[in-house]
């Protein structure tokens, strides 16, 4: 009986060059068996190159990558039997139906026991089994891609930007499928630039920027380490609170003329601010206290937003 390795993926000093371009610059990380590992980075950061090297699609310039204790450069044939991949911008044969597409990939793996109906159900595609691929919406295509990635009951599943380009509703449908993978204990390597996706699904997060890993840990650890503060939002206020808070040494940021955001280091500071406002007769109608999310961590570490639509106006 074989025992599962502690680490499903071990990347050591991985470097990838395209001519003069250094796409991946000496990165190292481990992915534990059974965990969901989110790989975050803006476009061009090197995340797709990294994941494609691990998936055996590309070859590294230097360094080593072991997947399920096998070297990706020499054991491609064995590795592909044990992994499932949803590539970025997944596409398939236009004229095949959903069922035929899953059957085709199952036949490629020689899997006679693939539960085609089970996969269709998991991907919530029961109503679409006889629809041709070309007629499916973006979200349905991605869900079919995930079902295909599972035809060989893989030990490691790679999902390269599974929700990019999807509307919020379709994205949530895909998340449901991903959550069921997590529940089933699969090792999942998730490449994304959606913070909420990583926070919802990931056990471990790695942030890559300009080919380098700049942060690695659980979402809580990363936030604790890099954005250990609270954001207080005071709603429906006039000019008085702004001056009161400023006099206390904080840096209030006006928002929408009616709200004020204040970054505080400790929960105690919130109580002090509220007391001061009450004393000044300028108590707000309502307030909101939030912990920063991974977006703020990313912004702090890289100085750039992950997506154009992700800026939240959070004070640094």
């Amino acid at each position, binding site marked *: 009986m074989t025992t599962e390795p502690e680490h499903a993926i071990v990347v050591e000093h991985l470097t990838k060059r395209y001519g003069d371009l250094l796409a991946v610059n000496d990165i190292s990380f481990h992915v534990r068996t059974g965990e969901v590992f989110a790989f975050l980075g803006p476009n061009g950061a090197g995340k797709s190159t990294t994941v494609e090297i691990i998936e055996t699609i590309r070859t590294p310039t230097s360094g080593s990558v072991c997947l399920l204790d096998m070297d990706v450069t020499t054991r491609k*044939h064995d590795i592909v039997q044990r992994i499932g991949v949803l*590539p*970025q911008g997944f596409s398939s*044969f*236009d004229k095949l139906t959903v069922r035929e597409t899953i059957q085709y990939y199952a*036949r*490629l793996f020689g899997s006679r026991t693939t539960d085609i109906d089970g996969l269709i159900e998991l991907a919530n595609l029961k109503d679409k089994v006889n629809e041709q691929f070309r007629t499916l919406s973006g979200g349905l295509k991605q869900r079919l*891609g995930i079902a295909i990635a599972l035809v060989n009951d893989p030990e490691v599943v790679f999902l390269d930007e599974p929700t990019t380009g999807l509307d919020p509703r379709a994205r949530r449908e895909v998340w449901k499928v991903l959550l069921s993978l997590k529940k089933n204990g699969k090792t999942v390597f998730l490449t994304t630039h959606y913070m909420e996706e990583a926070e919802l699904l990931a056990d471990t997060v790695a942030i890559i920027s300009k080919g380098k890993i700049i942060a690695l840990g659980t979402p809580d650890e990363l936030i604790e380490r890099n954005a250990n503060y609270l954001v207080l939002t005071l709603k429906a206020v006039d000019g008085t609170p702004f001056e009161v808070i400023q006099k206390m040494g904080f840096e209030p940021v006006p928002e929408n003329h009616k709200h004020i955001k204040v970054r505080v280091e400790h929960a105690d500071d919130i109580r002090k601010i509220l007391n001061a406002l009450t004393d000044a007769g300028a108590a707000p109608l309502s307030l909101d206290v939030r912990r920063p999310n991974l977006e703020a961590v990313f912004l702090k570490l890289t100085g750039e937003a992950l997506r154009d639509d992700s800026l939240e106006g959070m004070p640094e």
Partner: protein
Amino acid sequence: MSRRVIGANLVVSLKTFSREKSVMFFTIAFPIILILVFGTIFLKQDNPSFDLHVQDLDQTNSSAQLLKTLELNGKLKIIPVDPAIDATQYAKDQKANLVLMIPKGYEKALVRRLGLVGGIPSAALRDPNASVTVTYIYDASSSTTSAKIQLLQSAFAVVNQTMSGQPRFIRAAETSMLTRKFRFIDFFVPGIIAMAVMTSSLSGAVNMNAELRQKGVIRKLSTTPITRTDWILSNILYQFLIAVISTLAILVVSYTVFSVRLQVNAWLLVLIVLEVFAFGGIGMILARVAKEAESATAAANFIMFPMMFLSGSFFPLELMPGFLQTIAKILPLYYVNEGLRAAMVSVDHTAALRYAAMIGVFAIVVFVLGVNTTKWDEDPA
């Protein structure tokens, strides 16, 4: 190499083919349409038959006999014109490009010429100067007028020569290089087979490699057990099957509609296989060289269409100017055309072998190049 994987790929390709109307059209319907259209035209050229409008002003047994003689070889079908009407006006009204007028007095002149008495010729009464003049009312702008006049002149020459009672001095003997008599359609069908196989192989290879790569399907496949060898072999096998389907469709229509007299032998299969490898190889090279699928398709069309017309698929090379004939002889499709005609029409096995060897060498070179340029990983070359 995995038979299971190749089989799975083949099933997908055939399903896609059966659902892709445009591919079905160009693979099966288009060659059949060409066969039907050109076959009908050539059939008429091989056995030309014309309507001949005749105004018989004599209305005698002798003039009726002359008309029967004109119809004897089956090339002319007589359409009688009322003797009471104006023949020129009739030709204009009926758009008849030729009206033959047999004059009144035809029989009387014939009796004088032959010296007939009670239907029996008499040498003493024969008048060698007796003659008749028939009139052609014709439209010189019509393309078939001269053919009709030639046929009439030939028929009248035979009549005159028979009446002279002298045997012919020059006789012609015809010996065909071919063992059987073939029509133009028999030469045309192999060209259409070569064209159809080229189209399906070249377009198929471009679609399989360029379009699926651009869409990212090959990237996904490269993370499955299918290998580059499996992929190429299944594609070649698929293109061969499509070529066979297309060829069968062409042959069935050619045999049933035009009763072609072509021999189907092993050379047909050999040449189709070699052509699939040759044009499949070119397709793979184009798919790699072109940056986008659209450019690869455009490049394939750029190669295919001139080759169709220059390599003698549709009409004999002899009809083209000398420099175009020289160009034709550097085109691979020319050797497939000639090979198929040697195999199916003249049944010249030596010539078929020679052409097969030529296309075979070309096929090996481009296919090896194509295989080496078809990439399975994502790293830039």
